[in-house]
């Protein structure tokens, strides 16, 4: 090193221009909150099937650069990057002036980045925060970078040590990185994490690799984020290939958009490089940045010294601004991810709508055993008998039991027990058919909508359908023919009716005899956001009511017509809805077992999940993130 390193480091450390750091510190609020919001939205985004942001450049710059550095001590990070076996480690060792990373003939052997820190910096900064995604590990030997740890997937390691010689500028961190084009993809990932965090890239190119797609992609992203790039053409057949380099560089800059700060050529000389001495020949004619540092007599320059001479503040600000630009990019920035997020959420809304429209089944329940509803009403009437016309009730009771008795004698009528068994079998058959119908509709819906397919195939394809039917049978068998819920519901309805129509209670009796002829049909649908219509079900259904609910189109026959409208006259108008409600309540409760089976064993939490995903676009985080992007843009252009 020919320049005075202590002086160079001293000036850089002593005078970090306050204004510059303040400039990007003013973005701290927006970026920190933006990161929080995006982290909060990510699990939802994954569930939505929206693209994963973690591999995008804007995400890398936002989390790897801005969040990590915007309010920290303005150190400058410089990394040596390039393809396999291009001599990155040797160049890094030369820059540091010590063997920090072992160089071996085999390719892709540097597995972990190695950082060389200026003396005293490790105590001041939090390396884990400065290099998100890495676990910092103190350096023990130059072989650390090559080690393959057993818990390779657990965390990416970053090996660090302090510069023993004390020559490294006080605000400069130097890194050696793994390759960007080998067969081990985790190496690429680690190199990208380092690239995102750094301000200066020392791009190691060779005549074999300067135009490889993997290399171009890697450095294009650096150019987009306005990183400062120093190009080193390594393994050059010097001086034979000297005039070739201009063409190679032209291709490289045209492909990547990089404007190099300086360009060097390093000759192909293994022995010298192994000894830690690499001759860097500056190529000032190819360096529009012009910073090639002092040139020695032999035509070589000290790359480390010229690195120490660059304007750290300007480079830092440029890299930070570049990161903001990448985040704000209208074509590929954070906004596009929010767009994709909302688009996915809208797709889910459509899926939900499709499900609500299509997955709706009409259950044709058998006629209810007449005495069931009758008995409940009778129980209600019992304490009110004094206020009733006793004869009317007696006649009905007597006539009713007489008819039943006679019918049973001649074998026409079945016993109550038998009738209930018959009813139960027919009802179960109706519910089973409805279940099959439902499943078929769900299959159709998921065939039409790939998102639904992804969500429901877990249930429809891999589900154990025999268990669904077993569950339905079990629930149906466990359902008492008249439940307490229903009793409560009937009493409530009758109380209300008698309060509203004090004179019409007796008509209930007449009406009920007629009403029992009705044949109910319940439509069960996947009400994803609606409320339950039938009160009896709503009273106890809890969570299910909002998911699988009964649409209230209960058909209760044409009671009035059957009874002769003239006979009941005007009063029937008031009684009919009541009867309908009473029967509807009972039928709805019966078909609730289907809803429970659908929710309990067929679909599980999938409907809630669909509901949640359909509502994702309306999440306040999305609007807030957009607002923050807008604010960041304003702050960025103001500064």
């Amino acid at each position, binding site marked *: 090193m020919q320049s005075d390193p202590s002086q160079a480091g001293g000036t850089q450390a002593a005078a970090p221009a306050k204004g510059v750091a303040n400039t990007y510190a003013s973005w701290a609020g927006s970026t920190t909150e933006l990161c929080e919001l995006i982290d909060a939205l990510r699990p939802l985004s994954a569930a939505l099937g929206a693209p994963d942001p973690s591999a*995008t*450049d804007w995400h890398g710059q936002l989390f790897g650069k801005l969040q990590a550095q915007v309010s920290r001590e303005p150190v400058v990070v410089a990394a040596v990057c390039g*393809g*396999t*076996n*291009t001599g990155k480690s040797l160049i890094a060792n030369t820059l540091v002036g010590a063997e920090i990373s072992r160089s071996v*003939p*085999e*390719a*892709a052997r540097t597995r972990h980045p190695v950082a060389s820190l200026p003396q005293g910096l490790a105590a001041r900064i939090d390396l884990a925060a400065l290099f998100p995604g890495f676990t910092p590990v103190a350096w023990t030997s130059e072989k650390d970078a090559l080690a393959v740890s057993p818990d390779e997937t657990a965390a990416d390691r970053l090996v660090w040590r302090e510069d023993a010689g004390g020559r490294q500028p006080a605000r400069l961190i130097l890194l050696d990185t793994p*390759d960007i*084009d*080998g*067969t081990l*993809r985790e190496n*690429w990932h680690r190199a990208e994490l380092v690239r995102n965090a750094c301000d200066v890239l020392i791009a190691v190119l*060779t*005549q*074999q*690799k*300067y*135009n*490889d*797609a*993997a290399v*171009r*992609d890697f450095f*294009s*992203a650096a*150019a*987009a984020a306005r990183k400062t790039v120093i190009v080193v053409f390594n*393994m050059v*057949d010097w001086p034979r*290939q000297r005039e*070739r380099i201009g*063409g*190679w560089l032209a*291709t490289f800059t*045209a*492909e*990547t958009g990089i404007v190099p700060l300086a360009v060097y050529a390093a000759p*192909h000389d293994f022995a010298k490089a192994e000894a830690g001495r690499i001759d860097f020949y500056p190529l000032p004619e190819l360096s529009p940045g012009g910073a090639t540092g002092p040139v020695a007599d032999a035509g070589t320059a000290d790359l480390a010294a010229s690195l120490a001479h660059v304007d750290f503040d300007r480079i830092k600000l440029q890299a930070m601004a570049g990161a903001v630009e*990448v985040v704000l990019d209208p*074509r*590929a920035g954070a906004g596009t991810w929010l767009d994709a997020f909302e688009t996915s959420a809208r797709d889910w809304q459509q899926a939900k709508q499709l499900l609500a429209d299509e997955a709706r089944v009409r259950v044709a329940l058998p006629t209810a055993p007449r005495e069931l509803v009758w008995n409940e009403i009778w129980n209600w009437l019992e304490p009110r008998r004094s206020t009733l016309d006793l004869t009317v009730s007696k006649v009905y009771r007597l006539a009713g039991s007489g008819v039943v008795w006679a019918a049973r004698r001649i074998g026409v009528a079945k016993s109550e027990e038998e009738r209930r068994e018959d009813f139960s079998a027919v009802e179960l*058959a109706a519910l*089973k*058919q409805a*279940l*099959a*119908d439902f*499943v*078929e509709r769900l*299959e159709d819906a998921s065939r039409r909508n790939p998102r639904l397919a992804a969500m429901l195939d877990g249930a*429809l*394809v*891999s589900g*154990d*359908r*025999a268990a669904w039917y077993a569950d339905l049978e079990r629930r149906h068998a466990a359902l008492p023919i008249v439940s307490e819920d229903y009793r409560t519901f009937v009493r409530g309805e009758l109380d209300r009716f008698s309060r509203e129509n004090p004179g019409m209670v007796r008509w209930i009796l007449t009406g009920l005899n007629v009403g029992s002829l009705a044949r109910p049909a319940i439509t069960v649908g996947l009400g994803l956001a609606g409320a339950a219509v039938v009160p009896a079900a709503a009273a106890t259904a809890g969570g299910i009511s909002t998911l699988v609910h009964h649409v209230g189109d209960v058909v209760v026959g044409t009671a009035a017509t059957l009874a002769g409208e003239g006979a009941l006259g005007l009063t029937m108008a008031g009684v009919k809805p009541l009867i309908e409600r009473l029967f509807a309540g009972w039928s709805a409760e019966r078909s609730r077992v289907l809803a429970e089976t659908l929710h309990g064993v067929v679909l599980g939490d999938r409907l809630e999940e669909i509901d949640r995903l359909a509502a994702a676009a309306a999440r306040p985080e999305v609007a807030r993130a957009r607002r923050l992007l807008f604010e960041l843009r304003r702050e960025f252009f103001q500064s």
Partner: protein
Amino acid sequence: MTHDTAAHPTYDDTTFDELVEALARWSGSLPEWAPARRVRAEWEQVAPRLDRARRELSRVLVVGVIGGTGTGKSTLVNALAGGTVSAAGDVARPTTINPVVVVAKDVDCSWLPLDALQARVVRSESPAVANIVLVDCPDPDTQADAGAHAAAAGQPRPSDTNRNRDMLEAVVPACDVLLLVATAQKYRSWIVAREVAAFAPGRPLLFVQTHASRDPDIRADWRKELEGQGFVVPRIFRLDALEAASRAATGLEPEPGFRELVQAIDEELVGRAARRVRRTGAADLADWFLQQSHRDLEPLRPAVAQLAAGVTEQRTRLEGLLAKAVEAKLRASRSAWQRLITDELVDRWHGGPFAMFLHIVAAIASFWPRMRSAGGGLIGRLLAGNAIAPASGRGTWQTIEELGLGEADVEQSRSILVGLAARARLAEPLVGRARLDDERVQATVGTLLDRTAAWLSSGIDKLVAERRGRMDSPLLRIGCELLFTTLLVAVLVRAGWNFFHGHLWNGRPVEGLAFLEEAFVWVILFGLFLRWLVFARLRMGLNGDIAALVARLPAAGLVDPLLADFAEAAAKAGGFVERGEQLTRESAAFSARLAEPATGLGRLRVAAGRP
């Protein structure tokens, strides 16, 4: 060539031809099944190559030189061709854009799709390429990947027009052997590894490290890397093509690495060795195809088996319902059974007082309305002795409800099977939906009715015939007649004694009609008692026989039409998977018989995975 399997070429070739034809038939045998369609699609990729390998067994081999840009492919091709045939150098990357085909003067290469490949043909007199076709391929690593970084999407780049990898992927299919060139910088290139893995199946490889004069020897590490990717790597050549070319130009002795390569080409790729390479390649390719198919199909094997088991389970369930309903109906119709068993028999009993008595009772009973019979319906009609009219192919759910099979039960079974079928990726048109449409309901229910009626009526006939046989025994008949006649005779003797002995002889008054009335009642009662005894004997064990009849129901396969589509689909899919396994064994046996001696050619182990 020390060992030559071509000693029995016709035998092996015929076997292989048969295998290829069997593969073609098998892969296209179940186009309705998605996994089988995938197998077919893979076959269509493989088939032309197999076809060509068989047809052109003795043609010269096409050797494709592949590798990353800058590794010296063109330089090596020039060295082999003995002159500059392909532009090489360090001026610009990539150097080679259109493929260059190097071929000896007298070799016909018109079968190569040169125009489609935009290839340039160069004739060479070099002995190294005298008996092969050498193709300098474009590089795989300068064309941008489809999933390239979004940041680059902004402005146009010169490389946007780079289609070298696409071109490579068009050229390599025409190659029989790959010559993979790598340098210390590029032997671990991800993109090169991906492309090689995609084209390696069925293509032997030569591995060459170039830039030997500048780069360290990385062959040991490269071998480790290649073996990790599933390659068999007998040897890696190491040479410096630039030096080889310059030595050749100045007439110097070639360097040893280059000499070894030329020698290997001569030994491994020329003449009879070419046949062997092509045959081994074809066998490898067939193995590889079957391996891929196995990978696609194997995960579905348990699902297909589950479907088959599910069909059996649901069939048993439906048969249980059917048996239960039929048994209950048959048991409930005692009087119908009795009439069925006795009516005809009574007709056949003639010529005795008891027989006469039975006729009289039957005549009287015929006035009695047939109450509490089995009612209408199929079973009622059968028990009433009516000939069953065939259901004439029409039926609705109502018509079979009396057989215990409701729409809901059938739908339940079918819905369960739809789920199991979906797991095996079996869908329409191989299997129907849970709910049968009207047309199919009529057809299947009609068949079910016909079958059940035929089965039941034959069963009932047998049961009745057996019981009639019991009654036909002369001993029973004579016993009954004797017992009945004894009483009649006793009555007559008593009456005669009273009249002749008591009245005419002793002059006692005639006992009169009172005795006869009484006796008549006793005769009738005794007759009825006898009749009851006979019928009771007939009825004895009827319930047991009905149970036995119903127990034979599963063997009749009555409910099969309701689930036939699932049973067939499971059988078809299972058969497809099985046939694939069988062909895999056959193909492996063929490859084993081919058992090539160890050569210098590398190849992809069939069991290998992709990177």
